[in-house]
């Protein structure tokens, strides 16, 4: 087992024929992910990389039995693409797209919640279950199958941690990049719940950063419910207040969202907090 994606994932790629979409579709197929359909309005009937392309998500789902969608669609078209996948009955949507307006995401998230759809992202590197499926852009070669679950707001920092774990002989069950936006789909707690229930995950790494209070809420959840050890790293201890640090959600506002407060909350929940990413493997032992 693992969480969210595995060898039974039948993936549909929205925006497969675009530059990013095509590049990463090739990478996902090379990793062994079952990519069953692409959707690009106006290109239905074509075949790309041995995968049939459809004009609509509904047609693609009807023909191929796809059960998960990934988006490489530009931000201005992404809300429509997510509504389309939700209305076609897909229950897991992974949105790689970055630069999404917040007001768009508030409406999208509310609708997806009403439809019982799980969203990962936007502005995220997606999901990787090593040895089974890569649904996103996490470099597959740095990961190994194993029992450490990873959930992170940052992309490249996740790659860094995966590599450090692999180098220390610790494989991963599933790596989940939830994204750096202030309003997004699955949050730390949603993913921690899944890891807590997953028999193949025995330890979890949580990678947070400044902005918002998701890490504090995760700390409360860990204290009350988590049965597995958690190690954390929080980025942005040197970030100044009032400045957006690259990610739309990474900003200290009105004295809230400080790294120090998040670290304090996690320590109080018996989470070991690493001083830097390469220290994480030693804290997991």
């Amino acid at each position: 087992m693992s969480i969210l994606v595995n060898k039974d994932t039948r993936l549909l790629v929205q925006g497969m024929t675009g530059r990013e979409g095509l590049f990463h579709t090739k990478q996902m197929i090379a990793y062994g992910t079952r990519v069953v359909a692409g959707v690009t309005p106006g290109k239905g009937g074509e075949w790309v990389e041995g995968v049939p392309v459809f004009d609509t998500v509904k047609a693609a789902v009807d023909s191929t039995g796809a059960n998960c969608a990934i988006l490489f669609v530009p931000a201005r078209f992404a809300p429509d693409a997510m509504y389309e996948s939700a209305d076609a009955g897909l229950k897991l949507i992974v949105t790689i797209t970055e630069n999404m307006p917040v007001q768009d995401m508030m409406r999208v998230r509310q609708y997806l919640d009403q439809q019982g759809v799980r969203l990962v992202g936007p502005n995220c590197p997606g999901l990787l279950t090593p040895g089974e499926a890569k649904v996103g852009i996490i470099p597959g070669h740095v990961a190994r199958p194993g029992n450490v679950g990873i959930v992170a707001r940052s992309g490249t920092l996740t790659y860094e941690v995966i590599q450090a774990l692999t180098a220390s002989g610790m494989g991963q069950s599933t790596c989940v990049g939830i994204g750096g936006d202030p309003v997004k789909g699955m949050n730390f707690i949603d993913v921690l719940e899944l890891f807590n229930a997953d028999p193949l995950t025995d330890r979890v790494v949580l990678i947070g950063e400044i902005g918002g209070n998701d890490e504090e809420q995760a700390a409360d959840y860990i204290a009350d419910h988590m049965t597995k050890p958690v190690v954390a790293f929080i980025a942005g201890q040197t970030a100044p207040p009032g400045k957006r640090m690259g990610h739309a959600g990474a900003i200290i506002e009105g004295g809230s969202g400080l790294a120090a407060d998040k670290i304090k909350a996690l320590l109080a929940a018996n989470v070991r907090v690493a001083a830097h990413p390469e220290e994480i493997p030693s804290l997991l032992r």
Partner: protein
Amino acid sequence: MKLHEYQSKLLFAKNGIPIPRGRVAATAREARDIASELGGRVVIKSQVLVGGRGKAGGIRLAKSPSDAEDLATQVLSMTIKGLPVRKVLVDEAADIHKEIYFGITNDRAARRPVVIASSEGGVEIEEVARTDPDKIVREHIDPALGLRDYEIRNIALAIELPREHWRAFEKIAHGLYNTYTQTDATLAEINPLVITGDKRLVALDGKIVLDDNALYRHLDLAEMRDLDEESAQETEARKYGLSYVKLDGEIGCMVNGAGLAMGTMDIVKLFGGAPANFLDIGGGAQADKVTAALRIILSDPKVRAVLINIFGGITRCDEVARGIIAALAELKTHVPMVVRLVGTNEAEGRRLLADANLITAASLADAAQKAVAAAQRAG
């Protein structure tokens, strides 16, 4: 992107919110002319994109046109929190009977817009939150339905707004919500909204922060950006699609990915250095972007060493290496550079850099320690 007070209030006025009569002046002479036109007392308000203008002496009351000219001369020569005052707003002075706070922002935890109001206006809302949290009223709005009339009445009642003002308040509330949605704001704030002696509601001060990600559909608003209010480095960084924030330290950082960029700053600090900046070159950066990034970092005279940390996923290490080589040829710098390249095409990247005079590192900790040591030697 922050808008100036005068820009924010013009957007409010377009949506039916009453604002004081007034105009912007760039010289004291213009301020005098505007004051003559308006007649009576005026307020001279510095237009800089920081809070605390009043405390800094950047908001002054003038009794006559010649007084307005004198005060505008003073205010236009000020620097507030590092920003020189280049413009003043000359507004008719209001007869303030009562000050209210009224704003809308995105509540990221609730994933909804939230209307915030308080009977304690005229001071920063964070200040009220600390000293008098019971005086703050919040009403979450359904993003699909928009602001409902009853929600406005809930707010009016909770801030104990006298009933004679409810109709005017309702109109202002809809105007504020429309401004928020139509401009894709992350904050639309009237502070204070005043009740005047003759019982009108007027938005005396206003602030709008726009969602940068939505500017593609608001080209008219994007043009309102005041380039004088940001550093030359920030303007240059935006041109190349780089995220750059200047800090006070001596070690310049160039990283791909926001989280890793913050993590790199933190580890520099952990090993006794101080980061000079946050800089994320983003995913898939080409050589010209890397060159621009290094140019921006090295334009900071405090930088004693540069730490380049690249974990290639979409980003290719060989492209980054070509950018570094081009930058070195262009800039002819003697600032020591520590480079760590990992991931996609790392072997090719390292081969390209073998002849350049750079310090290489294998791990993040190793890179940070070498950068701190190099900065100390150079300092």
